């Protein structure tokens, strides 16, 4: 509605009319505009003063931070700890490796949005990318020194947890979604109870399960390290949510498609592979991106089981005597970090949705 009005206005009438129509159309609207302006004037200048003008930027003068508490922000904290926040405890002389991994991951995301990269090309791209990431992170090949995964951390770990989590959960979720629609009662029943159970409980309980309960279920002598356990929990969790997205796509395919494929004599797996899934997955892309955003944000929960991801490294840096008491700045920085990744993805899924269903402008809903 607003956009149509805007367009009509901008074509025909000068700015003053726009101001009247969009800021002072009725007395309630005028009141709202004035209230917003009043509060902006009261809040924004002191905020700019705190965040920029009086802020302390250089890590050399941490003592200056203490003196200006309440007057200026202490960005020196970020300047001092940024390597730890980006790369965790990865050996300092090898920091180019996780830095390259972050670049590769961002490039992979960006390439995946291209129209030409679909289907088998997309799969090849990701498999190559993930192999390269594995080599860069672990090393041990091509003269790179070996780095055990206890030393991975920071933003790199957050990106890896989210990316590998979704990549592994996706095939599993397709099986779950197909299983949920299966004619075999046992399969259907198992898939439904799995999906509903996982979706009914908080992620923390699944993470706790992986960190304290999983070791009990393994034979004596076998142990899985903490990172892998958390990653496993994230995969199992994401699979249940993705399965519902894929099911949404499957349900949108008309029955006739299935029947036509059957009439051609294709087997169940052939029908699924060549007829149903390609269509269903294409419809599911925007909600899949949304699920990925939710999942990306959810990786921050590993702070509770003590994995050194982006958020945990920030939290841990705050416990250093020099930087205690600067939580506001630190978490503001964390928020900006997550926002920089989530916002473009959110814009991308909105753009896709608009392409698929132009016109009404009813927004697609995000679950989390």
């Amino acid at each position, binding site marked *: 509605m607003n956009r149509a009005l805007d367009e009509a206005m901008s074509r025909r009438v000068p700015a003053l009319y726009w101001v009247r129509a969009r800021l002072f159309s009725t007395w309630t609207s005028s009141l709202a505009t004035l209230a917003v302006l009043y509060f902006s004037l009261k809040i924004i200048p002191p905020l700019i003063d705190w965040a920029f003008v009086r802020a302390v930027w250089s890590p050399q003068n941490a003592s200056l931070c203490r003196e200006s508490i309440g007057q200026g922000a202490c960005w020196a904290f970020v300047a001092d700890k940024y390597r730890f926040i980006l790369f965790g405890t990865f050996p300092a002389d090898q920091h180019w490796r996780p830095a390259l991994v972050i670049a590769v991951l961002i490039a992979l995301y960006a390439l995946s949005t291209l129209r030409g990269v679909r289907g088998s090309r997309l799969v090849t791209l990701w498999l190559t990318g993930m192999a390269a990431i594995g080599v860069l992170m672990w090393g041990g090949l091509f003269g790179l020194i070996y780095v055990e995964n206890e030393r991975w951390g920071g933003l790199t770990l957050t990106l890896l947890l989210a990316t590998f989590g979704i990549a592994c959960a996706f095939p599993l979720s397709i099986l779950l979604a197909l299983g949920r629609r299966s004619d075999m009662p046992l399969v259907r029943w198992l898939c439904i109870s799995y999906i509903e159970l996982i979706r009914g409980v908080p992620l*923390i309980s699944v993470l*706790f399960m992986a960190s304290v309960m999983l070791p009990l279920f393994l034979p004596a002598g076998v142990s899985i390290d903490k990172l892998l356990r958390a990653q496993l929990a994230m995969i199992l969790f994401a699979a249940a949510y993705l399965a519902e997205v894929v099911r949404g796509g499957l349900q949108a395919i008309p029955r006739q498609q299935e029947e036509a494929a059957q009439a051609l004599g294709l087997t169940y797996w052939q029908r699924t592979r060549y007829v149903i899934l390609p269509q269903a997955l294409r419809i599911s892309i925007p909600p899949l991106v949304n699920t990925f955003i939710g999942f990306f944000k959810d990786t921050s929960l590993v702070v509770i089981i003590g994995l050194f991801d982006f958020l945990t490294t920030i939290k841990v840096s705050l416990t250093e005597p020099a930087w205690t008491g600067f939580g506001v700045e630190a978490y503001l920085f964390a928020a900006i970090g997550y926002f920089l990744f989530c916002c473009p993805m959110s814009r991308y899924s909105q753009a896709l949705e608009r392409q698929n269903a132009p016109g009404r402008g009813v927004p697609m809903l995000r679950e989390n």
Partner: protein
Amino acid sequence: MAVTVGIAAWYFISNAVENLLTRRIASGFGFLTREAGFEIGETTILAYDAADTYLKSLAVGLLNTLRVAALAIVFSTLLGVLMGFSRLSLNWLLAKIAAGYVEVMRNVPLVVQLFFWYAVITESLPAPAEALSPVPGVFLSNRGFAFPILAAGTPIKLDYPVLSGFNFSGGALLSPEFAALLLGLTLYTAAFIAEIVRAGILSVDRGQFEAAYSLGLNQPQVMRLVILPQALRVIVPPISSQYLNCTKNSSLAVAIGYPDLVSIANTTINQTGQAIEGIAIIMIVYLTISLAISGFMNWYNRRFALRGIKP
């Protein structure tokens, strides 16, 4: 298929039994009647001290979960509806502010927001002696929020918080943990509700607006009599799943030290080593809450659904 599932289940269970035996961990829910031995910072209806049983400590945790979730659901619905309407407002400033709010809240993880609000309350607010008082009788300090409540008795009067020693007494005091959790949960959930409300209203065909206006109804009437009854059918199902999310998200309390169910179950697991039982309790409780909320929302939805059309 059935055989494979059976074998896998048997394998894991036999491993678990063996591990529990070698680690000398008891099994079963007998521990619930034993003495818990830890204090809980925040109790509401149930009185509790360290000499009480694990069962009672978990009940206190559950009540804390329900308290924060219920309040967050109420406040986030109010704020979410306000923001949803603001986004559709003809007023450009309101629409932009609401859009910015939704975008920021949805794209920052809730845990980060909780840490942020907790830091704001405990680091940026002054000590109780210099507490901020935006409204007379309400005090914001680094020890939490104090505000007047209705005191029991006749005649009914307000009980005001007063500064005594290092903190406030009288009135109601929200701990920093509770205040941060409620604030974070409310602001976060409200952003999702705002989008649901906006989508619901936009889903009503434009012809409905035009027809209603041409009947001579004014704007509030159009909304109340024509648009909202239709929009609610679209709004209620996703909003009920947001209420579920809100309840599940309240489990992030453990990150800032508010004693909710998950936090207390976690302490219980650490003390007794009975991880399987502890996690089973968490899961059963959340599943029950999920079923209860979705049952209630289904009943509510049936009242709004079109007769003769299956949702």
